[in-house]
């Protein structure tokens, strides 16, 4: 693996680790579309149920 490739892999691994930590306690029902629901204000204020 070349030096630039190693750097890219390391950058991606760093991001992956950060996401993994933050996502550890995500509710099962959490899905990407929850973002738009939150903006449009149609969401029940609470967290999605598992």
């Amino acid at each position, binding site marked *: 693996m070349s030096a*630039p490739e190693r*750097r*890219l*892999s390391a*950058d*991606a*691994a760093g*991001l*992956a680790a*950060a*996401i*993994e930590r*933050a*996502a550890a306690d*995500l*509710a099962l029902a*959490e*899905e*990407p*579309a*929850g*973002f*738009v*629901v*939150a*903006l*449009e*204000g149609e*969401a029940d*204020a609470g*967290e999605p149920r598992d």
Partner: protein
Amino acid sequence: VTDWTLEALSRAIAAREVSPVEATETCLARIASLDARLHAYITVDADGALAAARVLEAELAEGRSRGPLHGVPVAYKDLCQVAGLPTSCGTKTPDYFTSPHECTAVTRLRAAGAVTLGKLNMTELALGPFGDNAHHGDVQNPWKLGHSAGGSSSGSAAAVAAGLAVATLGSDTGGSIRVPAACCGVVGFKPTYGRVSRAGVMPLSWSMDHLGPLTRTVADAALLLGIVAGHDPRDATSSRRGVPYYERMLASPLAGLRVGLADNYYFEGVDDEMEAGVRAAARVLEELGTTVLPIRVPDPQPLVDVCNVISRSESAAVHVRLVRERPHEIQPTVRARIEVGFHISAHDYLQALRLRARLTRAFIAEVFAEVDALVAPVIPEPAPALETVKAGTVDEIVNRMGRFSRFTRPFNGLGLPALAVPCGFASDRRPLALQIVGRAFDEATVLRLGHAYQQATTWHREHPAVVQPTRTPD
């Protein structure tokens, strides 16, 4: 004419004091005299602009007006598809992006009477906050040549600041409207995600991309937003919410509004003059009747990580052919930022999208239970020297890019409306800027705050030395 606001020029055209052809010719003359130094434009369509202006002039002569934009010369970031003009997206390839349909926002502005002057320079593929471009020239900051105009909508901001267009459109995936607006001392508005259609615009990261106006005043931004906002069947993410008459809501009193001054993250490592300018602007908002209170916002760092994973993954998917087939044509820093996306797994991408939903819900619940709007700096320091930001290794430059856009990127992740407003000058005349962030789809409150601030201050009436105006009407 070129130093006027959109509002003032519109009134003058309606009153037949200035004709659409005169306004267009004046802008074209200004471009001809200044743009060799500023590099704000990639394509100038003088013939097309004059032909459109003549048609609009004939319509006025027949007593027909398309509205407040009738005959007003504007220009577009060169990632908006405009019929008859190439769309380079800041790359070496003149027609890098093609679309079967023109950019919806451009079509709406043209229908409202705007004259298209041309296409504006930008950071290559909209990836970078400094406005440097190896293919089309580094956009120069009109307030201080040799300094960054900000990016990626560098030409959009420099053109407004220098009077090379009365208003422009830019795009914002991590700060690309607000950062150049802040560097160049103009207004830049990233509306709520879904408020303005991105159809006909080069995607960089479809989950984070926003389109919005750059203007000299908040009132002008309100006018433009009212025209380009609203559902578009060609953009599935565009909201079906109705569009208010923003310009009619600008003068509503501010009394009773609660404005939060971010107590954590947003003032860390900020230049002294920038911090003083933003805090002084908050005091002006308080004098105007708002209640300004310190607020601790949820830690933005997880959100920044989420933004990076999503935008790197999506931009790698969009631009894979260019990166794989012609990597030598791309600036090394731009290529490096895209290539990270090839190393991010589908698992991490999807987790980031799921996290974004939770973080957005939490931010809205926590922050907007306390305040109606949030105030923070746009950029950590005034426009840096181009020589400085381009120096060093690819890693060093990429890290520098991330640091410079760290106050804008969170609001792309959150999708909230965020406005950049000039709020003074550093001791060497580089502009300072304030960021005002509001609730989702509450662009009206953000615009009211920005407009009231501009009514109480005069920063937006000043012009860079490179383009001293002849006169500036109210």
